């Protein structure tokens, strides 16, 4: 099964990180990525720019409504995601628990809808 692991965290703390802390986090993600690549489960993934760069688009009655900012203002924001190919939910949970962001924020694990 394919899963998306959505990484939620508090952006404010990331912004205030020192350079050393940033390097540490970067290295943790590199190590994680190598680990998952080896397991063959990694299909892809990206980090996202902060929600301050987000634009939300809604179309109502044919009219586009464009607003500044993310869809919802919450304490934790979507900061990135991985696309994983796993045997089952247990494997997806195991991998998600190793994502560096899991120890500070939360990872939402969602199955991908398959059309076949």
């Amino acid at each position: 099964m394919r899963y998306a692991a959505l990484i939620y965290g508090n952006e404010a703390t990331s912004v205030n990180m020192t350079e050393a802390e940033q390097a540490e986090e970067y290295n943790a993600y590199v190590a994680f990525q190598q680990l998952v690549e080896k397991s063959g489960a990694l299909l892809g993934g990206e980090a996202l720019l902060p929600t301050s760069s987000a634009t939300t688009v809604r179309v109502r009655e044919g009219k586009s409504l464009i607003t500044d900012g993310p869809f919802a203002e919450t304490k934790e924001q979507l900061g990135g995601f991985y696309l994983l190919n796993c045997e089952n939910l247990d494997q997806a949970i195991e991998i998600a628990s190793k994502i560096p962001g899991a120890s500070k924020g939360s990872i939402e694990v969602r199955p991908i809808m398959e059309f076949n």
Partner: protein
Amino acid sequence: MEDQAKNQFQELIEEIFREEASRVLASLIGSFKKFELAEDVLQEAFLAALERWPLEGIPARPGAWLYTTARRKALDRLRRSSVLDRKQALLVTLAQVEQELESTPDALVEKEFEDFPDERLKLIFTCCHPALNQEAQVALTLHTLGGLTTEEIASAFLLSPTTMAQRLVRAKRKIREAGIPYAVPALDSLMERLDGVMAVLYLIFNAGYTATTGETLVRHELCAEAIRLGRVLVELLAKAGLRESPELLGLVALMLLHDARRSARQGEQGEMLILEEQDRTRWKRSQIAEGEALLERALAHRIPGPYQIQAAISALHCQAARAEDTDWFQIAMLYSELVRLTRSPVVRLNWAIAVAMATTPGRGLELLAALESDPNLQNYYLFHSARADLLRRSAQWEKARQSYHRALELSHNAVERAYLERRLAEIAAHQNLE
């Protein structure tokens, strides 16, 4: 007369079905990887049994008969299902099963079922998977492993059958869509996952244990069901060659010891009796002995845990022939260990009561005063009822009256309320005398 015999026969078939259903269901899910399909065809196999067993006699291996029949029905269904429904994975299963079924005579399939490893362990871990919410875990476990009908589970948890049916449907959908595996967890997470299973069993037990007369009978059956599932779990872990869990043994012991005293908690009019008022000859001695033996086996591992400690406390109560023989000193020590392990405010409350019983009510009241500001206890009826009891024991009638009143305000259970009102009447009598 004929009707009566027929009814008895039907009851016998139902009983056999109840006994065999969970194992057959577990094997069917194992073969077809589809929860709903497995449930449907098992139900059809049961109907077939009701029709055929009265004519053909009860098969020598009823479980194997049900499995073979259900498997055949599942195959028919899969063949009939539209091409669109036949997902890739399903086609593999279909081809496999088809081939197997055609190349193996029924007798051999039956034999295979007998030799098949018991799949119920997988089913337990699937039903209690942490990705399901706990209410769903409880309902699924009772439904698939306990063989309780949706109506029975609904009535046990005071919900409408529709609500319970929806809960079960949602849970099964989550299992399918999220890819919750049908497997015993890997060794490194097994103990953690076992904790979740134990929590579900204890919840089922407590739902039955806290039930009072006037509520449905099914709730009391929950206690028996939780104990039965606990025993099955012990047996299945052993069969799978897995390490014995002292906490699991402790939990089964705890449930047995509590349950042994259950019926004595109510007087003839259904009124609530506290420990010292209970007729101890009504405690079930054989069940206490079984619980004590299990507890000893657990303690021999020398890895203590909350369930074992609670079982040990319950065992000490059971061992006292009269209330005044209770070894409150040791109970207080066990509670202080439990406080250290769980940090639960309710456990702290019980510890304070045990200390009061081991020493003086005044000492207990001092400990309760320290707990007074805990927000978890402020609106907990047992906190106020316990304080009232200690005040009553130290003849502080007015303060006791106030605390019983506060407890009464917080309790919504008719039997508890009747107990509190009885105490208030006693205090009023004392106050009139003075």
